[in-house]
């Protein structure tokens, strides 16, 4: 069948742009997510597309995995593999572990979201953070490559270890802030400009995710690894203690000291 040139141009102008808007290719969707285009993200949340959530999960696995690999590479190649698995695992377990709580808190604090929508919103913010981390992975790998090896004979000063540790903290914090800034924009759009409601929901989610995420990272330690300890997926007493518990114990100790 012959198609007249005029018909082709008509198809191009009517059909093609519609398809592009409704189902943009993955790369364009990824850009839309990074740009935080609130209207588009709002539409995605309401569409409830499972494929999109899976794609977000894949970005987290790749982005955070690459960064984790670069982080663990300093200690040993095995450690790189372990951290490449553990880092995305923390993000995904935090999202799932708090899914129900986040979904309950949203309507109570002023945003009527379903469980799926709240999970997807949190997942989107983590996806942005993971993408940033993935982008930083080559830089981290370069930094680690330039550092003296972290083996049992690690003789360098404490400065090297601290500097690398600090660099990780700064990069992860930056990624986290960027992800949450985008999340806030999305929540504001969902709340129809109700900044107060959006802020309350974001801080509640942030607090919950920080609380669970910190404990999960404690359980799944080590990440950088210690030169004097063996390379392991879990430490022998992985489930013992935690950051919050030690802070709490310090308070109890002080309390007893003052009141006894």
């Amino acid at each position, binding site marked *: 069948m012959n198609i007249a040139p005029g018909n082709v141009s008509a198809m191009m102008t009517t059909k093609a742009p519609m398809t592009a808007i409704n189902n943009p290719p993955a790369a364009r969707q990824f850009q839309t997510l990074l740009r935080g285009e609130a209207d588009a993200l709002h539409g995605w949340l309401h569409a409830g597309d499972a494929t999109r959530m899976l794609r977000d999960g894949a970005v987290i696995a790749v982005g955070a995995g690459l960064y984790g690999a670069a982080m663990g590479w300093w200690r040993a190649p095995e450690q790189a593999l372990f951290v490449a698995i553990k880092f995305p695992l923390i993000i995904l377990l935090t999202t799932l572990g708090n899914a129900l*709580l*986040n979904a*309950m808190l949203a309507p109570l604090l002023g945003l009527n979201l379903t469980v799926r929508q709240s999970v997807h919103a949190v997942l989107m913010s983590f996806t942005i953070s993971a993408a940033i981390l993935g982008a930083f992975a080559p830089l981290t790998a370069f930094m680690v490559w330039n550092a003296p090896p972290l083996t049992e004979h690690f003789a360098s000063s404490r400065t090297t270890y601290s500097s690398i540790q600090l660099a990780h903290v700064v990069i992860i914090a930056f990624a986290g802030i960027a992800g949450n800034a985008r999340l806030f924009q999305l929540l504001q759009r969902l709340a129809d400009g109700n900044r107060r409601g959006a802020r309350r929901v974001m801080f509640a989610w942030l607090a919950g995710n920080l609380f669970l995420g910190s404990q999960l990272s404690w359980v799944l330690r080590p990440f950088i690894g210690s030169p004097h300890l063996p390379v392991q997926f879990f430490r022998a007493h992985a489930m013992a203690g935690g950051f919050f518990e030690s802070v709490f*114990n310090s308070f109890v100790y002080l*309390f007893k000291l003052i009141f006894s």
Partner: protein
Amino acid sequence: MNEPNQPPKLPPQMPTAKTPPPLGDDPAERVAITGVVSAVESILRQPRRVMFQLREPGAGKVITALVLIAVVCSLIYGVIVGSFSGGDQWWAAPVKTCAGLLIAAVICLPRLYIFASLSGSQARLLEIVGLVAGLLALMTVLLIGFAPVAWLFSQSTESIVWMGFLHLLFCFIATAFGLRFMNAGFAQSQAKSNAGFNTWVIIFLLVLLQMTAALRPLLGTSPHFLPVEKKFFMSHWFDCMK
């Protein structure tokens, strides 16, 4: 000068705080709550729908659903509490958690009705029972949300004090949301003052806290199901910290 018979002019009215519209204004609030799932959805997303339905003829069914939610969710959360020690606590902690909440509610219920009436509230006893059932349901549903976090922490510590603190923290957050629901319901009952309700809140919290001592141990282990020695909760907590 003012005219002798003319009352002094009132200052212009300050814009009042946004008062909620009367219950049932929104057609969505008039949709009947038909079961447990619908009750969970409503208590989280449309609390005004629950408040409206509590004034309608089928309020008994709504209250039953809310109490059922509270029982099931408190039993589930109790299992998480019991997972810290295991053994007999697998069944004892859920029973005590559920019983503690229900007993606290029953103990405080008559006082709420009296205080509400003293405050000028038009709420019927059934409505007050419904509000308390809503408080328990919302509290326990939220505790289920905290359950994964509580479970992770209970598996990664041996400190009873830390775990007790965490459960109290989660319980406090859940209770705060539950009381907010009750307050909103109370505000719809045309009460002239909130003083009675606020007093009730303090008493309810104290009773809840006392349950941690009256039904001890909720976290640790003991040869007895219930304590032999009587203690106030503060004294019990101090003993735990020693």
